[in-house]
């Protein structure tokens, strides 16, 4: 299985990542991608700033990927998470999964996002449209609920 994990400041190209995931293979039937984007919250935000714990971020994404690989039959898996300043409309995170059938690809992508949200050491801070630095984004309780549902499977 191909496994790609990047924690990076730069933007990424989704098509390049899908191409890398499927390149030279003709046994993949399903590719699911999730892209998380920065919203401007109805014009309130100028940007989101993403702080991260270098070293642990990569390690934790690798652990989450390893768990997905053990739960589902995957042919490839890509996680890219950005840090630094991200403007509205820009991408923050990409998860891509490749499998023979769509069920595994969908489930693994959702699992990766749910786990990543509550386990990967990244923190978002708002930068406001009026130039002020805003608050740290609060963790959403529904993200814990989303992550917890995988524990009983």
């Amino acid at each position, binding site marked *: 299985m191909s496994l790609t994990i990047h924690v990076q400041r730069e933007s990424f190209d989704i098509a390049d990542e899908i191409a890398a995931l499927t390149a030279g293979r003709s046994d993949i039937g399903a590719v699911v991608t999730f892209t*998380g984007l920065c919203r401007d919250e109805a014009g309130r935000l100028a940007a989101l700033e*993403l*702080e*991260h*714990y270098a*070293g*642990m971020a990569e*390690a*934790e994404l690798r652990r989450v990927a390893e768990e997905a690989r053990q739960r589902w039959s995957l042919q490839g898996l890509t996680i890219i*998470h950005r840090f630094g300043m991200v403007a509205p409309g820009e991408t*923050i*995170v990409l998860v891509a999964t490749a499998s023979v059938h769509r069920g595994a690809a969908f489930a693994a992508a959702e699992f990766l*996002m749910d786990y*990543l*949200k*509550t*386990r*990967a*050491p*990244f*923190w*978002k*801070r708002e930068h406001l449209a009026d130039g002020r630095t805003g608050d*740290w*984004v*609060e*963790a*959403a309780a529904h*993200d814990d609920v989303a992550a917890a549902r995988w524990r009983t499977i």
Partner: protein
Amino acid sequence: MQVKLVYFAWVRERVGRPDETAEVPAEVATVAELVRWLKSRGEEYAYAFENEGVVRAAIDHVHVQPDAALAGAREIAFFPPMTGG
């Protein structure tokens, strides 16, 4: 025990530094005990850990619970609930 402490997001801002090396007394054996010891050291720590249940910890890049043992730890991190993705 000498250990590197690292802080992130508003925990870092409240403590006032991104990291430090601390000489932790031998009787401080768990993460929860380390938090109590830090809170006794100054207002900035008391503020950062005012709601003990909120701040998360990791030892050597692995998430841990408050009862985790410090023995052998090289780097202990404190941070708010994560908001990536």
